[in-house]
C-alpha cells in the first residue's frame, strides 16, 4: 500500500494562499487512492507556476517546454505504456501555447491524464490574460480588458468526444482528489480542468468568486449523455458545474501499434532476422 508520506514534502516557490497547494495535495491523495508508487508515475509538465508542481512530490518527472508538456507525455506513454503518465500544467501552457497539442491529444485518446491548473491568468509571467480569462478581464497587458472570448476547455473537449471530461476546484480538495483518481483510473485520455485562484494576479476570479458559483453535479446527472453534457459543459458564469461532465469508452490509441503489444519499447531487442527480411524487400 502506497502512503501519502512516500510522496514527500517539499518547499514550493508558490505564493502563500495560492490554489496550487490544494491541487498538489489532491494529486497526492489521488495517487495514494490509486495505490501507485512514485516510481510508477511520470509527471510531465510545461512551464509556469502550475508546471512546477511535479517538483513538489516524489515521482518521475519530465519538466519540458512551455506549452509542450502534452507531446512529451505522448511520446513517453508510447515508449512505455506501463508508466502512469500525467500531463500537468497551467491554462496558458495547455490551452494557449499548447492549444494545438490539446486538440491532438483529445483526438488521440492515449491512456493519459491531463490536469490543468486553470487560474484564468498567466501567473509566472506576472499576470497577462490567458485563453480562459473572462472577456474584459483587465491586466497590464490588456488595459481595456481581454479582447477575446474566453476558451471553455470542457465544452470543446465534449464537442470533440473526449473520453473523460471533468471540472474540479482547488477549493474543494476532497472532490478534486476523487476526480483526479477517477481520471487516472479511466482507460483513455482524461481531462480535469481545475479552477485555481491566483491570489497575486487574478483579483476577479477569487476563492470566493468560485465558491459562490460552483455547484456539484447532482447524483442523477448522467455523464454518458452527450447532449446533456454539451449543454452542461457550456455553463460558465453565474453557475459553474463541478464533477465528471462527460464519460464514454472508446478504443485506446495505443492499441493501434503492433509494436506496443510486446510491452515497453526499451525492452524490445532489435531482431537481426527481422532486419534481414526488411533488407530482402529492397532486392
Amino acid at each position: 500500500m502506497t502512503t501519502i508520506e512516500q510522496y514527500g514534502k517539499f518547499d514550493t516557490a508558490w505564493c502563500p494562499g495560492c490554489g496550487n497547494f490544494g491541487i498538489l495535495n489532491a494529486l497526492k491523495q489521488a495517487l495514494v487512492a490509486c495505490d501507485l508508487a512514485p516510481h510508477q508515475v511520470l509527471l510531465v509538465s510545461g512551464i509556469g507556476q502550475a508546471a512546477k508542481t511535479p517538483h513538489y512530490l516524489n515521482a518521475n518527472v519530465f519538466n519540458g517546454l512551455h506549452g509542450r508538456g502534452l507531446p512529451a507525455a505522448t511520446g513517453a506513454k508510447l515508449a512505455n505504456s506501463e508508466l502512469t503518465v500525467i500531463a500537468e500544467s497551467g491554462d496558458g501552457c495547455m490551452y494557449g501555447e499548447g492549444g494545438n497539442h490539446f486538440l491532438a491529444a483529445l483526438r488521440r485518446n492515449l491512456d493519459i491524464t491531463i490536469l490543468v491548473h486553470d487560474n484564468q491568468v498567466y501567473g509566472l509571467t506576472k499576470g497577462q490574460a490567458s485563453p480562459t480569462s473572462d472577456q474584459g478581464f483587465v491586466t497590464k497587458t490588456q488595459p481595456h480588458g481581454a479582447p477575446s472570448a474566453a476558451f471553455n476547455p470542457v465544452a470543446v473537449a465534449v464537442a470533440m468526444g473526449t473520453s473523460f471530461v471533468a471540472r474540479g476546484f482547488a477549493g474543494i480538495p476532497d472532490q478534486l482528489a476523487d476526480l483526479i483518481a477517477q481520471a487516472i483510473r479511466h482507460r483513455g485520455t482524461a481531462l480535469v480542468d481545475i479552477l485555481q485562484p491566483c491570489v497575486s494576479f487574478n483579483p476577479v476570479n477569487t476563492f470566493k468568486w468560485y465558491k459562490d458559483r460552483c455547484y456539484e453535479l447532482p447524483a442523477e446527472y448522467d455523464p454518458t449523455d452527450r447532449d446533456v453534457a454539451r449543454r452542461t459543459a457550456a455553463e460558465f458564469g453565474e453557475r459553474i458545474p463541478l464533477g465528471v461532465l462527460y464519460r464514454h469508452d472508446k478504443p485506446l490509441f495505443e492499441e493501434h501499434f503492433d509494436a506496443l503489444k510486446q510491452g515497453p519499447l526499451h525492452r524490445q531487442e532489435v531482431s537481426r532476422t527481422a532486419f534481414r527480411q526488411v533488407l530482402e524487400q529492397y532486392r
Partner: protein
Amino acid sequence: MPQDINIVIGGEAGQGLVTIGQLLSKALVRAGYEILITQSYHSRIRGGHNTFAIRTGTVPFHGPRDTIELLVALNAETVALHQGELASQGLIIADAAFAPDSAAAVAVPFKELGPEKFWNTAALGLIGNLLGLPADLLFAGVEATLGKKHPEALAINREVLDHGYQWAATRITARHFTLAGGIAGGNRLMLHGNEAIALGALAGGVKFCAFYPMTPSTSVVLSLIAHADLMGCVIEQAEDEIAAINMAIGAAFAGAPSMVATSGGGYALMTEGVSLAGMTETPVLLVVAQRPGPATGLPTRTEQGDLDFVLHGGHGEFPRAIFAPGDLEACYRLTQRALATAERYQTPVFLLTDQFLADSSRAIAPFDPEQIAPVKAGADPASAKAPYRRYAITENGISPRLLPGVSEHLVVADSDEHYEDGHITEEQPVRIAMVEKRLRKFAGMKEEVLAPQHEGTPDAELLLVCWGSTKGPVLEAAAILREQGKKVATLHFAQVWPLIPEQFLDLLGSASKVVCIEGNATGQFARLLRRESGFALPHRVLRYDGLPFTAQYIIDQLGQVPAQGENP
C-alpha cells in the same frame, strides 16, 4: 559497348514516367548494371514537367550527367526542354504525334503497339530492347508490380511489351545502346538515400519516430512505417513539427531510441525542442533533408542552404554533432553512428542531407544484418546509487541515464537549470558546473570526429573541398580533370561538426589552389572552415538554382571562379 548511358524520361506528373523508370531500373540492376536515378519534379500532383533520369553502365556513378543518350519524351514539352541536351549519338523516343523533325528522333506509332493505357509498357519494351535487355527480364518486373493487384492485366501487358520490344528490334536500326556485360549479381539492393537512412535507423536501434510530412524528408518515414510492425517500432504522425520533436524527446526519455525527419521549415519549428534535448540531455536524432529556401522556396528541389541554421538552431549553448553523408552507404552507416553518438553523449545529433541525396537511387552491395549494433537506451539501474542523480557531475560530462519506471529510482529531467538530482535551481555555482558539464561532453565528441576523406596527392594544384551530397559530382569532376592531366585532389567532409582543424589544415595548406564546392549562395561551409581553422576559402563553386551539381557544371564553373567576398 558504352559504359555510361544517360536515359531521361520526361513528361507530366501523372503520366506514369516514374513507373517506366522504376521498372527499367529494376531490370538494369537485375541484369547486373550500375544505375543512378535522379528525379526532378514540381510541387504539384498532376501536370508540370517532371523527369526521371537513369544513368547506367558498368561503372558506379555518383552524380547525374547533363548530356542525354536516350531521351524518352512522354509529351512535346519534354522534347522542347531537353532536345538541346542530347549527346551527339543520342536518340529521342517520342510518340509520332509530337516527335521532332530530326535525325535523332524515333517517331513511335504507339497507337499501333497497343491501347493508350498500356503505352508505358510499350515504351518499356522498346527502351529495353535498345539497351539489349532480355524481354523476360523486363516483364518479370511488370509481373512483380502488377501481379497481385491486377493479375487480369498481365496478359495484355506482356503483349504490348513484346510489341514495343519487337518494334524497336526491327525499326530502330541506326543506334542501339547495348550495354557491356553486367558486373554484379542480382544480389544488390536498390535504394534511394531516404531508404538507406531508414534502414540505418532500424539497424541503429530506432524504436520511435514522430514526424509531420515535409518534402523531401517524408520518404524516410514512409520507409520506417513500411517496416514498423516487423521491426517493433512506433511511428506517429504528429499534429505539427513542434509536437514531433517533443514527442521524440519524451519517448527517448522513456527509453525508446528516437528520431524525427523534416526539412528546413519544419526544422525551424523544432529548434526550441533541440535546445530542450540539449538541456535535458536527451538523445535524439534529427534528419534534416534540405530543399531551397527561404520559406517555402522550391519544395521539391535541392540545396545545401541550411548548414548554418542546423549548426546554430536552438537557444543557449550545448553540444551537438552533424553528419552529412555523401552517398547511400554513408546514409546507412552514419545514421547508425548518429544514433550511437546521440545516445552516448545524451544530446541532439543531426543527419543533414538534401533532396538530391534523398531521392536519388542506386544499386549497392547488401548490408550485413549481422554487423548491426543497435543502441540500447539508458544505463543499468542496478549500478546506480541512491539517491539517483540524473545529472551527476562527472569528469567526461556524461551522467548515468536511467529510464523512468524501470526501477525504483526516480528520474527527474528539467528544462530549467537544475541540481544534479534534476530539480530547479538558480544557484550560480550549480549553474556554472552544469554549463561546464554539458560542454565537457563536447570534448569527448571531438575525439570521435570522422576525418574528412582525401583523394589525390597532398600537393595538388587544385583541391576541391566539399561536404554532404556534393561528394559524387566532385569526385567525378576530379576524375575527369585528372584525365585531362590536371593534378586534382578532393576533400570530402561527411561530418561537418565538430570540425578538427588538425585533421585537414595541412591538406588545405599544401594545395596550390583550394576551391570549396557547395549548394548554396553564400558559401556557408567555406565560412565555417575559416571560423574553425583560420583557413580562408575565397574560391567557391556554388549552385542555388534547385538542381544538383553535375561534374560538368563543376568543371564549367571552375573555369571562372573568382575569389568571393562574404555574403549574408
